[in-house]
């Protein structure tokens, strides 16, 4: 592991409602450059809060968060967000803007020249495998769920960030689209040398896509490591999270004939 992690949480805490709801409780986590980390947990586990602390969509109460070696509390949050890609649940596209305008939004906020933005939008459409001519001028409501999320990924990558944060990006998609999109993103992550933190409630997705998996429950980080390392965890909840997909896979194996369509 390199000396300076690209994202570092050090004893971070965050509570809401004047301290009554503790969303993140003393969490320390490091993400190295080029790593793909998935944070797994149920609803209310604090995983989304943890993600948003990194680009200061939420401000931490305690502890320290560093991005690319800099303490985020010392960086202008607007500039911080412009250099970190963020993929929202079900896209979060601006419904009144075309696909091209949605993708080009951060570069235009950064004041890139129009021609450069247009070129970048075309490159990104290629990258997320959407036909330029066909999709450039469409509005989000004219796209399928999978296409919208591809645009969401392209928008996150537009300003060439080193870091991409993803908030349950594939949660609302059908299984086939979800699988294809996951694989495509995983390839992009590798090709572009990105550092990715992805939030998900789905352990299977986490294991299949990420290098490392962190498990959260009630604001606390229960365990983290490669899937193999996690499987040695003594924590009962972690064990249950890992056993469920395996059991499902075994039952599927038993139920589906091996030479069938699957």
């Amino acid at each position: 592991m390199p000396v300076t992690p690209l994202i570092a949480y050090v004893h971070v805490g965050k509570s809401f409602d004047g301290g009554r709801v503790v969303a993140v409780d003393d969490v320390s986590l490091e993400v190295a450059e080029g790593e793909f980390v998935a944070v797994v947990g149920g609803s209310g586990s604090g995983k989304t809060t943890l993600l948003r602390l990194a680009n200061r969509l939420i401000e931490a109460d305690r502890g320290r968060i560093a991005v690319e070696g800099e303490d985020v509390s010392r960086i202008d949050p607007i500039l911080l967000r412009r250099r970190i890609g963020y993929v929202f649940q079900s896209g979060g596209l601006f419904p009144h803007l075309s696909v091209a305008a949605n993708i080009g939004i951060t570069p235009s906020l950064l004041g890139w020249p129009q021609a450069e933005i247009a070129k970048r939008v075309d490159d990104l459409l290629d990258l997320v495998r959407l036909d330029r001519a066909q999709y450039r001028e469409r509005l989000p409501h004219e796209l399928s769920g999978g296409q919208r999320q591809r645009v969401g990924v392209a928008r996150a990558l537009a300003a060439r960030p080193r870091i991409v944060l993803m908030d349950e990006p594939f949660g609302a998609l059908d299984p086939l689209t979800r699988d294809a999109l996951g694989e495509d993103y995983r390839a992009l992550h590798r090709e572009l040398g990105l550092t990715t933190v992805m939030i998900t409630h789905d352990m299977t997705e986490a294991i299949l896509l990420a290098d490392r998996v962190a498990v959260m429950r009630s604001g606390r980080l229960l365990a983290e490591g490669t899937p193999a390392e996690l499987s040695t965890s003594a924590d009962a909840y972690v064990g249950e999270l890992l056993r469920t997909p395996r059991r499902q896979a075994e039952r599927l194996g038993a139920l589906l004939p091996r030479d069938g369509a699957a």
Partner: protein
Amino acid sequence: MSLFNDPRWTEALTHLPDYLGNHVRVSVAALALGLAVSLPLAIVARDKPLLRGTLLGLASIVQTVPGLALLALFYPLLLALAALTLSWFGVGFSAFGFLPAVLALALYSMLPVLRNTITGLLGVDAAIVEAAQGVGMTPRQSLFTVELPLALPVMMAGIRTAAVWVIGTATLSTPIGQTSLGNYIFAGLQTQNWVFVLFGCIAAAVLALTVDQLLALIENGLRNRSRVRAALGGLGLAALIAATLVPSARSQSSYAVGAKTFTEQYVLSSLIAQRLQAAGLSATIRAGLGSNVIFDALVAGDIDVYVDYSGTLWINQFHHTDNKPRTELLADLKATLAKQDITLFGELGFENAYALVMTRKRADELGIRSISDLAARAPNMSIAGDYEIFSRPEWAGIQKTYGLSFRSQRQMQPDFMYAAVASGEVDVIAGYTSDGLIAKYDLVMLQDNKHAIPPYDAVLLLSPKRKDDQKLKAALQPLAGKIDIAAMREANLRASGNDASSSPDAVARWLWDKVGGK
């Protein structure tokens, strides 16, 4: 004569450029001011529940004030303010007409704009606002590139509602001295010129619908990213506004003749204007002014000349409670007015007093000739009067002097009360001595045997700035003492007719001929 080739349509049409132009100017200014205040307020208040509640509450309260009252309230308010700025900074402004109308209408436009802007902004999906933050927008960028565009349809619906309200309510700005399409309606109602009433209503409705549709076109263009449609709508609005900016033919040196809101006043203001024009002076009529507004407007010089009645001034303007004989009261009044630099130029020659009026038949049956006779029967009778009589001090005086007490009191439009008493709907009315309908319905006026009703000589009043205006005085001189009660009654009767010869202008010409002026 059919409804459609009635010459009054043509007459109505000749006023259209003036009335419509003023109507559009006052509406557009009010709407622009309303938007300039409401939009920033709504944006600031959208995430502050307390401020939001307060604003919407206040705007709702304003909305419950009847339009006519709201407009009328602004006049004394501004008058006081103008007096204040004059004494503090040496600069006054006209509290008459345009300014109070614009302020009141702007206030009126605020509720739909505030409510719809706040609703629209709060209705923007929180996830979208979060995404705007996430891609690195500042709050301002988020507001202008994401939240406002997404809230636009709801906001535009509010703006359209406000536009229609303002254009409709602007017809009520006539009584505070702002010319508008309401001039047709007020004049028409008072002189029973239904062609004018209809014309005014139709013109206001067409204007409201046109503006509404142009705004819809702009909204549609913005929403569907169609520059053509948005531009067409904008161009339409711009053309409408530009058309009203063509200078109307009113010159600054023109004399403004005021008129209150009843038939006789419309006729007399026309007569005065015709006399001024005959003397080579230009004159414009500011008709339909509320009786609370018209005297102040004269003091402020917003109008130059109008006809009032001695008793009205004595009791309502100067709050005297004592009754005096005619000539004494006139002399006192003249001196009192002079202190305010107002010239009581002269009497016209007739009185328009309040009188208790019954049908001749009923009065004969019951043997009632005077108010004293009436007093004995009054507890079993009903009386009707105009909107002010029962709250005027004169009425309290009459009641006290004669010990009058009726079974019931009703208020109604003056033109309708004569028919009401003639048909037996009510037993007695508080009518006007100069009203032509008294003869028409064969009614009798009861004698004021104890002299409780003050004299109401019609007098010409001149504004302070015209007190030494010899040209004006020369032009008005022929009117002094010229109009007797019989002539005025007949003129009023003619003016209450519903045909082309009953327009105030035509009646005024007839009256001038009748009294032998040439």
